[in-house]
């Protein structure tokens, strides 16, 4: 108890507050930028946190995570585009409200619900910390192994549009995660004798590649959606009153948010829909839903902020990420040298409390800023994306380079960017890929550890049985709720391309088997088993896709019908997105020639001017500001930027990408 308040006072030190505030501001911004969410936001700050004191770093990272689900309401209500994946359900009633001229009311209700939900989540988290020690002690290797496997099953089955494709994404992630030194024998696996891959693919590269790049090209492509401003909007007080009138709904949805968030691996992506359908089921008069019922905004917003607290529970005590962005948070833990588990509730308890307070405070700050500066912040949705995008690309490249200071990371980033873009467009699950990638080593080790200590007897331990029952019930329940919608394959274009893509994906497990088959069985058993399962799943998907294309009779069978739902993704504008992606390759090429700083300035100018020839003032001033920031950062972090070929010809200062 003493530590609880000591942590609060610690947080109110100027430095902590400053980092928390900085994190919160960044979180608000990535929340507003549609598509960017906590995962991208964290990936951007991770390369910087390892120079910080752990407590500052934690305040900042939580600061980034907490308010993204608050500010994501702006685009949801004003543009009808979810700001993060957690606010998809908010659009259902938020956008109609805004069209009726009640945007202010919707926003104010959403912010207050977010605030209450967030604080509720922090509260539940702090209570659960008290009971964590016996839970950790009851979870041996066997239980942890089950927990991880069940987490993977859940995230695979539920985050994709099609559950088999989701599961397969998960397995592909697991396979990518086995690249690097084999944990049992120390053999290099799939590294092609390079140093770069010895420690596996860096997490930040995977996170930014999978999440940030695809969203940026997606938004560049969807230019033109007209946003509303908040000029002269009234109704802030009404929105607040709505929340208080529906206090019981807020409480229920916060509880749902916490519970679903705490299910390891699931978190984020489905919680808003679960809250929304809970609301529908418990309301008598459903006529206004989808047309602008304020409760349709309150329910998902309360739930998606509450889930952050819930999702931190498995993250902190088992190191199993509660959602996609927690993967990055755990990556941050590694960087600042804290290990999830027993330490978090014993020797590092002060840090845990600091995180809980940060979570509560960041929610308050986030909601406060959103309300106070709503009309200013809403202008963010008006900035043309072709101005934001090149700046964000430069930021992402910078963050990537800052991890290992390695050119290969750029190639890795663009590689995973391509995977991300194709995954997104062809309806494969990116969260499942990321979580599979992250948990891969853990699954492999736990399976060996469980085998060494228990053999198969772990399956009969009481906690294990409870876990298995719980998991299958949840999956059944959620699957039923999620895939009731009807599937119309006719809308999907580019079907041949999507079938071809499955064949491309098969190359990964095939080449994995080919490359590592000569290693010791303890080094290749795990990746080869994964590869075989992945191949079976991929073949099945291929079969269903072809059957769907040929309209075979046997698809009428209920199970096959279920497998076939959303087997093709309705893609739009993939080619254009790909063009934008190619322009990033151009940026990489510029980097090779000019080094990072000059290449960034050039890229920003070229990109903006290509879209709007008259905007040279904007582009010049943005690139000038960027150069100044890079110059400051290079002296602050003693950072030498990637130098280009030009550095060999002309002498340049090192902050411009010179050699010395």
């Amino acid at each position, binding site marked *: 108890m003493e530590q609880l308040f000591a942590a609060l006072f610690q947080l109110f030190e100027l430095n902590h507050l400053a980092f928390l505030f900085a994190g919160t501001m960044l979180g608000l911004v990535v929340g507003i930028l549609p598509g960017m969410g906590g995962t991208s936001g964290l990936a951007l700050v991770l390369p910087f946190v*390892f*120079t910080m004191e*752990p407590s500052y770093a934690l305040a900042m990272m939580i600061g980034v995570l907490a308010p993204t689900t608050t500010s994501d309401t702006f685009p949801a209500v004003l543009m009808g585009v979810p700001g993060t994946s957690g606010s998809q359900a908010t659009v259902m009633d938020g956008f109609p409200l805004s069209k009726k001229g009640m945007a202010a009311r919707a926003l104010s209700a959403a912010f207050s619900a977010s605030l209450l939900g967030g604080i509720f989540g922090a509260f539940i988290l702090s209570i659960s910390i008290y009971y964590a020690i016996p839970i*950790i*002690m009851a979870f*041996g*290797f066997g239980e942890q192994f089950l927990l991880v496997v069940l987490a993977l099953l859940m995230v695979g089955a539920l985050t994709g549009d099609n559950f088999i494709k989701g599961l397969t994404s998960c397995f592909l992630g697991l396979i990518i995660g086995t690249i690097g*030194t084999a*944990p*049992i*024998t*120390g*053999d290099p696996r799939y590294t092609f004798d390079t*140093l*770069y891959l*010895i*420690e596996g693919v860096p997490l930040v590269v995977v996170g930014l590649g999978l999440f940030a790049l695809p969203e940026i090209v997606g938004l560049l492509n969807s230019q033109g959606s007209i946003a509303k401003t908040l000029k002269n909007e009234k109704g802030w007080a009404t929105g607040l009153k709505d929340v208080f009138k529906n206090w019981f709904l807020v409480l229920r949805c916060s509880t749902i948010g916490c519970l679903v968030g705490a299910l390891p691996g699931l978190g984020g992506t489905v919680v808003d829909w679960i809250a929304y359908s809970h609301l529908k089921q418990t309301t008598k008069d459903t006529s206004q839903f989808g047309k602008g019922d304020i409760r349709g905004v309150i329910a998902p917003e309360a739930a998606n902020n509450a889930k952050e607290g819930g999702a931190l529970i498995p993250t902190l005590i088992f190191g199993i990420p509660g959602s996609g962005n927690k993967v990055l948070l755990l990556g941050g833990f590694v*960087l*600042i*040298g804290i*290990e999830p*588990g*027993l*330490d978090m509730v*014993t*020797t590092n308890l002060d840090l845990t409390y600091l995180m809980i307070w940060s979570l509560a405070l960041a929610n308050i700050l986030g909601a406060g800023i959103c309300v106070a500066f709503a009309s200013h912040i809403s202008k963010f949705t008006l900035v043309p994306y072709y101005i934001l995008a090149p700046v964000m690309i430069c930021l992402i490249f910078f963050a990537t380079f800052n991890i*290992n*200071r*390695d050119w290969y990371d750029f190639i890795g980033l663009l590689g995973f960017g391509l995977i991300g873009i194709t995954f997104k467009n062809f309806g494969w699950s990116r969260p499942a890929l990321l979580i599979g990638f992250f948990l891969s*080593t853990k699954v*492999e*080790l736990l399976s*060996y*550890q469980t085998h*060494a*200590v228990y053999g198969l007897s772990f399956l009969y331990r009481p906690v294990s049985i409870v876990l298995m029952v719980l998991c299958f019930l949840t999956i059944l329940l959620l699957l039923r709720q999620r895939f009731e919608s009807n599937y119309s394959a006719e809308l999907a274009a580019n079907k041949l391309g999507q079938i071809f893509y499955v064949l491309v994906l098969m190359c990964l497990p095939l080449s994995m088997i080919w490359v590592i088959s000569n290693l*010791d069985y*303890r*080094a290749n058993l795990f990746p080869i088993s994964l590869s075989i399962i992945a191949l079976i799943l991929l073949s099945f998907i291929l079969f269903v896709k072809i059957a769907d294309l040929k309209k075979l009779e046997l698809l009428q069978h209920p199970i096959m019908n279920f497998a076939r739902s959303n087997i093709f993704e309705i893609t739009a504008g993939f080619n254009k997105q790909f063009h934008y992606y190619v322009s990033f390759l151009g940026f990489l090429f510029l980097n090779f020639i000019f080094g990072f700083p000059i290449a960034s300035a050039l890229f920003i100018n070229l990109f903006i001017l290509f879209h709007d020839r008259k905007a040279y003032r904007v582009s010049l001033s943005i690139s000038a500001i960027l150069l100044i920031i890079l110059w400051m950062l290079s002296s602050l972090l*003693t950072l030498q930027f990637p130098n280009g070929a030009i550095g060999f010809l002309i002498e340049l200062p090192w902050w411009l990408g010179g050699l010395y």
Partner: protein
Amino acid sequence: MRKFLILLLVSFFSLTSIVSAEVDFSGKTVTWVVPFKEGGGTSRFARFIQPFLTKYLPGNPDIQVMHIPGGGAIKGSNYFQENAKADGTFLFGCSTSVIVNVATGNPLVKYNLSEYRPVLLLPQNTHWFTRSDLATEPHDMSKLIERDLVLYALKTPASADLFHIWVFDKLGLKGAKPIPGLSSSGGYQAFLRGEIHISSHGAANYVKKVKPEIEQGKVVDLMTLGIIGTDGSVSRNPLAPDAPTFPEMYEKINGKKLEGDDLEAFYSIGAAWSQASKSMLLPENTPDEIVEVFRDAARKMVNDPEFKEKALKALGPFPLIIGEEAGEIVKKAAIFSDTTKDQLNAVLKKNRFTYRVK
């Protein structure tokens, strides 16, 4: 303005130091390459020493710590080998894992560690302990020796953890079986849950996490690695003065003194694992007078009252090793004799690992 100030400072210091020493670093920058991430043990070690070193080196050079993580510390170490100038402007932050890469003959290693010129070494020590129900009294291993299965944590055989296998083999623990992939912290958690039987920790975590459990009677000490003196004597660890050292335990169990090949292997392992746990080295071929200037600065640093006050908490209780004897230790740690390698490979084989020391 800033340039002018720097110029002023530089000229001031160059004036004052012309008289005092031939080696002078005024206005220079010393780059301290650390082949690990920021925040790790070696990084903390370097950052702690950095200000004191600036204070006591002639000319008070700027010291910047440059982190080059990756490739199991090989990337940064190779970078140092290829880029460091042997004029005192480059320092290397070394740790047990950097040494083990060399000692075990990792083919990717390009750095010639045994020829580097050590300035100072920071020793560490390992404590082994078990659950109280697995020992009749503290420091007693007879119950464990009788057991069919004694599980312990092992991160990977391609690391210093390999030495655990050797230690338990020499003590005749027939049931000893490593559980791979467990960090020392993860291993300790499993130990507390009762899943593994022997666990170990370094000094800092021993004091913080294990001592309270020992006081509650749940855990008992088994032994420590022992503090190896520069003359080869092994003394007990002041943090657990009652616990026998490994050579004592060896004698008690095997009925004969640790000697011959076993003793030689113990010295090599002790040098890599304990004595040179963290170290600060200059590149090979650094002139003697520059090495001496650094060692002088390190000696002065050790006597600095501020250093004395903070070192116990930041670096642990074991005194730094400075001077020529440090060089011998690094050589011993980096170059394992063929008999030592054979011993290690034999225990690796016995435990069915495919990894081999080369």
